[in-house]
C-alpha cells in the first residue's frame, strides 16, 4: 500500500508539474490563475447541477436526482477516460523506468488506475454532492439511504473507467496491426466515441411514454447509464439495497479488471508504446523550402502524429465537420428531431455564428503546441528563426484546422438555410474573429507558461494551465452574447458582433505583444 501511495504521489507531482509551479518566477500569478480557473470550474459545475436537480425537484421528480447525477457523471467519466486512458494506463513514457523498480505489477497498475480515478472522482464528487444536497432537501429523512448515497460517490467512477480502459485497450490492440498506428488509433477512437453516443441515444429514446413524465425521465436517465437504475426507488427492494448492490458491483468490477489487466500488462503496454517504423524513402526529391513552410510542415506532422493532441484538441473541429455533413445530407426537420429543435432553419439562422464559434473555440492545438515541443525545444531555440516565425507556424496549423471545419460549416449552412444578407455576413465573419482569438489566446498563454519537462503528452494537451484557461476563456466569450441577450434588450447577433470585434482587436494586441519576445 505504501508503494502504491508513493507511486501515486510521484505521479501527481509530475503530472501537474507541482514543483515547477512552486519554483516558478511567476508563482503568485500562476496560483491566482490556477485558483481562479478552478474556482470558476467549481462554481459552474455546482450551479449547473443544483439548477438541474432543482428543476427535477420542482417537477416532483426528486427521486430521480441520484440516478441522474450517477448517469451523467458516469457518462462524463466514460468519455474522459477514453480520451486519456492510452496515455496514463498504457504507453506512458515513465513505464520503462517504473518496470525496472522493485514494485509488483499490480501495484504499478493500481497506482496508474488510482491516479486516473482521482481525476474522475473530482467530476463525480462535484456532480453527486451538489445534486445530493438538493435531493436531501426534498426527500424525507433516511439516514441509511443518504449515507450510502454519499459512500457510493467513491465507487461511481469505477465501472465507467474500467469500460473506457477496456475500449482503449481494444483500440490499442486493433491499431497495433497497422503500419501507421496513430491514424488508426484515432479512427477507432472516434468510431468508439460515436458508437457510445449512438447507443446512449438509442437507450434514451426507447420506450418513452410522453403521458407519464416521471417514467419518461427515468427511462432517459437510465438509458444513458443502465446501472443508475439501482439509484431509483424499487418496489422489489428498498433504495438502500440498490445502493449497496451498486457499491458491491463497482468494487467487484474494478478489482477484476485490475487483475485481468495485470496478466498481460507488459505486452499491452509494449503495444501502446510502439512507435511507427515506416520508411519514408530517401532524401532525394525534397526541395528547399522557406523557413515558414518548413516549420508549418513540421508542426502539422507533429500534430497529426500525436494521437492525444488530435483526439483532444481536434474534437470541436471534428464535431463541427460531422454536423456540417449531417446538415448537407439530412432533411432539416429530421436533423431538428435528432437534436430536439423544432424550427431548425430559424434556430440556425440566429445561432449559427455562435454555434460555429463554439465548436472552433473547443479546438485549440495552439494552446499546447509550444509545450509539445518538449525536449525538442532546443532545436527551435538554437535555430536562426524569429519567435514570430515559430508562433506563426503554430498559429497557421490551428487556423488551418479551423479553416477546414469553418468552410464546411459555412458552405453547408449557406446552401441549406434561407438567411438574409446580414445573417449570411454574420455566419461568415463572426466565427473568424473567434477562431483567430482562440488560436492567439492559446499560443500567447502557452508562450507565457510553457512546460517542456513533461513525461506524457496528456499533461500538456489536456491538463496544462494554458489549455484549461484558454478553453474556459474562449467558452466564456462564446457564452457572453447569449448571457447578455438575457439581460439586455439587444439582439443576440448584434451582441455577438460586438464581442467578436472586441476579441479580434484583443487578439491583434496579444499577437503583437507575444511576438516581441526574443526567446521561446
Amino acid at each position: 500500500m505504501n508503494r502504491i501511495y508513493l507511486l501515486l504521489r510521484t505521479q501527481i507531482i509530475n503530472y501537474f508539474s507541482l514543483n515547477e509551479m512552486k519554483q516558478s518566477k511567476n508563482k503568485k500569478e500562476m496560483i491566482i490563475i490556477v485558483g481562479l480557473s478552478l474556482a470558476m470550474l467549481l462554481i459552474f459545475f455546482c450551479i449547473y447541477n443544483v439548477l438541474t436537480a432543482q428543476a427535477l425537484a420542482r417537477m416532483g421528480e426528486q427521486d430521480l436526482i441520484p440516478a441522474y447525477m450517477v448517469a451523467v457523471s458516469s457518462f462524463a467519466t466514460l468519455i474522459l477516460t477514453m480520451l486519456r486512458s492510452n496515455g496514463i494506463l498504457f504507453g506512458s513514457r515513465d513505464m520503462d523506468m517504473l518496470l525496472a523498480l522493485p514494485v509488483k505489477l499490480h501495484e504499478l497498475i493500481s497506482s496508474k488506475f488510482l491516479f486516473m480515478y482521482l481525476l474522475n472522482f473530482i467530476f463525480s464528487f462535484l456532480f453527486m454532492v451538489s445534486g445530493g444536497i438538493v435531493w436531501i432537501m426534498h426527500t424525507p429523512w433516511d439516514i441509511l439511504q443518504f449515507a450510502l448515497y454519499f459512500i457510493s460517490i467513491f465507487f461511481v467512477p469505477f465501472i465507467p473507467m474500467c469500460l473506457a480502459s477496456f475500449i482503449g485497450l481494444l483500440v490499442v490492440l486493433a491499431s497495433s496491426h497497422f503500419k501507421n498506428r496513430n491514424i488508426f488509433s484515432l479512427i477507432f477512437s472516434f468510431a468508439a466515441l460515436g458508437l457510445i453516443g449512438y447507443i446512449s441515444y438509442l437507450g434514451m429514446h426507447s420506450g418513452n411514454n410522453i403521458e407519464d413524465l416521471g417514467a419518461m425521465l427515468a427511462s432517459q436517465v437510465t438509458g444513458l447509464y443502465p446501472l443508475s437504475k439501482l439509484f431509483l426507488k424499487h418496489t422489489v427492494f428498498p433504495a438502500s439495497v440498490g445502493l449497496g448492490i451498486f457499491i458491491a458491483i463497482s468494487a467487484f468490477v474494478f478489482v477484476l479488471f485490475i487483475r485481468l489487466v495485470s496478466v498481460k500488462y507488459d505486452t499491452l503496454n509494449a503495444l501502446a508504446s510502439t512507435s511507427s517504423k515506416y520508411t519514408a524513402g530517401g532524401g532525394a526529391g525534397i526541395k528547399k523550402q522557406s523557413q515558414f513552410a518548413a516549420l508549418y510542415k513540421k508542426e502539422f506532422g507533429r500534430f497529426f502524429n500525436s494521437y492525444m493532441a488530435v483526439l483532444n484538441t481536434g474534437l470541436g473541429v471534428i464535431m463541427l465537420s460531422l454536423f456540417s455533413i449531417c446538415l448537407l445530407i439530412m432533411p432539416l426537420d429530421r436533423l431538428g428531431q435528432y437534436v430536439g429543435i423544432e424550427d431548425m432553419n430559424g434556430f440556425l439562422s440566429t445561432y449559427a455564428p455562435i454555434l460555429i464559434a463554439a465548436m472552433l473555440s473547443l479546438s485549440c492545438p495552439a494552446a499546447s503546441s509550444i509545450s509539445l515541443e518538449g525536449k525538442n525545444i532546443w532545436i527551435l531555440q538554437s535555430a536562426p528563426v524569429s519567435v514570430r516565425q515559430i508562433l506563426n507556424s503554430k498559429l497557421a496549423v490551428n487556423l488551418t484546422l479551423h479553416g477546414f471545419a469553418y468552410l464546411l460549416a459555412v458552405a453547408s449552412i449557406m446552401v441549406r438555410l434561407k438567411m438574409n444578407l446580414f445573417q449570411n455576413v454574420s455566419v461568415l465573419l463572426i466565427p473568424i474573429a473567434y477562431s483567430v482569438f482562440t488560436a492567439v489566446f492559446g499560443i500567447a498563454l502557452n508562450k507565457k507558461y510553457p512546460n517542456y519537462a513533461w513525461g506524457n503528452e496528456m499533461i500538456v494537451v489536456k491538463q496544462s494551465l494554458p489549455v484549461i484557461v484558454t478553453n474556459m476563456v474562449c467558452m466564456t466569450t462564446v457564452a457572453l452574447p447569449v448571457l447578455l441577450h438575457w439581460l439586455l434588450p439587444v439582439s443576440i447577433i448584434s451582441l455577438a458582433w460586438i464581442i467578436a470585434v472586441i476579441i479580434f482587436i484583443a487578439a491583434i494586441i496579444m499577437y503583437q505583444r507575444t511576438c516581441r519576445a526574443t526567446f521561446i
Partner: protein
Amino acid sequence: MPILEIKNLTKTFSNKKKAVDNLTLSIEAGDIFGFIGANGAGKTTTLKAVVGIHSFDEGEINIDGHSIKKDPLACKAVLAYIPDNPDLYEHLTGYQYIHFVADLYNVSTSQRAQAIKEYGDLFEMTPNLGNVISSYSHGMKQRTAIISALVHSPKLLILDEPFVGLDPKATFLLKQVIKECVSNGGAIFFSTHVLDVVEKLCNKVAVIKTGKLIASGPIEEIKGNQSLEAFFMEVES
C-alpha cells in the same frame, strides 16, 4: 576579431542560484576550445546562453561580431549547437529532419545534398536516414544531430558532451570532423568530462567551478608540467 566573445556573463536562476558568475572568455578562428568543470559547475548553462537558448542577467555575448541579445538571428546563423542529449523530432525521418534544419538555415539544395552525402556516408548513417528517428538508437540520433549541425557549414560549432553515447569509431570520426572544421577557419567550443580528449584534441581550455571561471587559455600554459587531470583535481579540491 574573435568568433566568440563572452564578457562578464552572469546568469541567475529563479531559485536565486548563480549558475554563471562574471565569466569572460574569447574564442578565435582555429581554436578547439575545451570547457571543463564538475557536474553543475555551469558549463551547459554557459553553452545555452551562447546559443541563445537561455537569457542572461548581465554581460555580453558576441558571435562573429553580432550581439546574441541584439541580433540573435545573425548569431545563430553562423553557429551550430548539439546538446548533450540530442532529442530530435521522432516523427520525422533522418532525411526529413536534416532537410528541416537545412531549411531553417536557408541552405541551398546542392549544398545540403553534398553535406548529407559526405557526412551521411562518413558516419555510416546513409542507409538509415530514410527511417523514422523514433526507431534510432541513442548513437544514431547523436550522429544525425551531428550531420544536421554540419549541413550549413557553421563557423562556430558548440557541443555539449559530444562524445557521450558515441561508439569508438564515431568518436574518432567526430574528432576528424572537428579538426577539418577548424582547418577551414571555424572554431569549436565544447564541454566535456573526458579530460584525456581535451588534452589531445584542444589547443585551449577553460575551467569553470561553481559558475566562476578558474582558468582559461592555451592548454600547455594552463596545465604546466602536470597532466590536465592533475591540474583539474588540484583546482577542484
